């Protein structure tokens, strides 16, 4: 057990060292959510008049943009396993005496750490869209962000273990990441959307993550916080089980 924990720590540490070394990437990654908030939120907000959103559009999409940042960063770091495989480093990890489950957990924690860092940075910038987050709420959001990140990190690992090639990456971006983002209620409420879109939205785990953050910050949650949490944690655990199993299958 102790050596498994040490293995998880070492895999996590590698991700963190690389994350730190590429901190310029990190800075540029922060501009995307800010562009969404300021330009998209500001521009759309002026032209939107709807009864469903009461808090102002920029504020409304703020939790959604936090969710988007977590989604993009986590999925990307999960898929980074494809890089590891391409450059051969994955072999070094896979032939070590560490269990495959520990490998998945270590990788996921590494990716979640960087996603969480970005999420916290974004929360600190909430004043841009005139949102005040109390210290208590701030602390409440952190574990929610952690579980959202872990879930999508492992989901990224799951996809990476299914697809062999690099070319698949773009396909995943357009067929999984973007729809997950759009159908999460990040940018607009889906309560008035056609039935099939609503169904898809309800099947989307990010919906509940965004809803939980929105509930805490704006008090505009659709579902109860405990229900949101249950699904977010459930998704992360489910993906972890499936992906560990998948990693354990030898060819």
């Amino acid at each position, binding site marked *: 057990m102790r050596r498994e924990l040490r293995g998880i720590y070492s895999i996590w*540490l590698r991700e963190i060292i690389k994350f730190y070394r590429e901190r310029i990437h990190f800075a540029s990654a922060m501009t995307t959510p800010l562009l969404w908030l300021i330009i998209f939120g500001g521009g759309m907000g002026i032209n939107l008049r709807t009864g469903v959103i009461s808090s102002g559009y920029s504020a409304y999409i703020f939790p959604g943009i936090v969710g988007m940042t977590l989604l993009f960063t986590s999925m990307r770091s999960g898929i980074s396993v494809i890089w590891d495989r391409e450059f051969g480093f994955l072999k*070094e990890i*896979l*032939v070590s*005496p560490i*269990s495959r489950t520990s490998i998945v957990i270590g990788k996921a924690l590494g990716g979640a750490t960087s996603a969480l860092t970005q999420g916290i940075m974004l929360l600190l910038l909430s004043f841009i869209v005139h949102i005040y987050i109390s210290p208590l709420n701030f602390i409440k959001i952190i574990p929610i962000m952690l579980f959202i990140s872990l879930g999508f990190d492992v989901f990224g690992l799951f996809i990476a273990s299914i697809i062999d090639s690099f070319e698949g990456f773009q396909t995943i971006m357009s067929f999984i990441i973007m729809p997950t983002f759009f159908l999460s209620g990040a940018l607009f409420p889906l309560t008035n959307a056609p039935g099939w879109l609503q169904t898809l939205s309800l099947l989307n785990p990010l919906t509940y993550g965004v809803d939980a953050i929105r509930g805490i910050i704006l008090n505009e949650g659709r579902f109860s916080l405990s229900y949101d949490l249950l699904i977010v944690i459930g998704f992360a655990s489910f993906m972890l089980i499936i992906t560990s199993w998948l990693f354990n299958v030898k060819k």
Partner: protein
Amino acid sequence: MYAIETTNLTKKYKTLVAVDNLNLQVEKGKIFGLLGPNGAGKSTILSMLCTIINPTSGSAIVNGYDIIKDSAKVRQSIGIVFQSISVDDRLTARENLRFHSMLYDVPSGIMEGRIQEVLRLVELEDRADSLVRTFSGGMIRRLEMARGLIHHPEILFLDEPTIGLDPQTREHIWDYIKTLAEKEKLTIIMTTHYMDEADLLCDDIAIIDHGVIKVRDTPEKLKSFLVGDNILVTTNLPDKLATGLSGQDFIIEMKVSQNSLNLNVRQGSRNAPQIINIARDLHIAVDSINIDEPTLHDVFLHHTGKNIREEENDNFISMYKRARRGR
């Protein structure tokens, strides 16, 4: 006890039998070479012994542990240098070694000391804190060997250790392998398709083709199996020389062609002067004489009936990939 013992080890990919009922014992402390053309099944054997892939049937014991039931223990007791690069080039050499030590649970108290020790062994101390992406191919290979040793394994697996390296670096790597075997008292299992490499390094060689061991022995014995040396004498009177030489007991076979005489001779270098003396007595002018001692290459040719294919791309991998794509 053997370092490695396999029983009917078999691996099949769809219709392709990569390894066919392999029964192999390797003694401890030896450098054992698996020699064969690309696609012969060498890497598959190695992958099974390293517990990367499971055999289709049969089993193997590595360091006393079963590769299927005790794979974690097998992994802890072996070091591997893969055919393709497997270090993280965005980390420094030291970080790569630290990562490996932690995965293999080298106690933290002695970890830094071990890292220093292996870095010294492969002479990379001064580059320890440089990013690996600034390293040359030979340096990366050395780093990988250092990494494979850091947890003090009993067996070191080297899969084509010098593939894709320039001749000078290859000789350098050979020196390191020899030093390792002497200093660390390791069992080294290596695959190669280079004859010179196998001849120089290995105590024991198995020639493999189509997943089957064709022959196995020391390089010297393998070579002495081919009895004589080939001597080519160029002269304008080959017939006369052949007549003169007939009856000499060191001659095994003679073949006359235009302007030359092909001889198969016992102990070629020692008997060559004899041939020249006979020619001089018969007043035959010898233009040149060429002695060819059998190489492993001839041995290989003899046992497999073909030249070893000297290409850089592993046919087997592409074959395997094709099989998987068709899945």
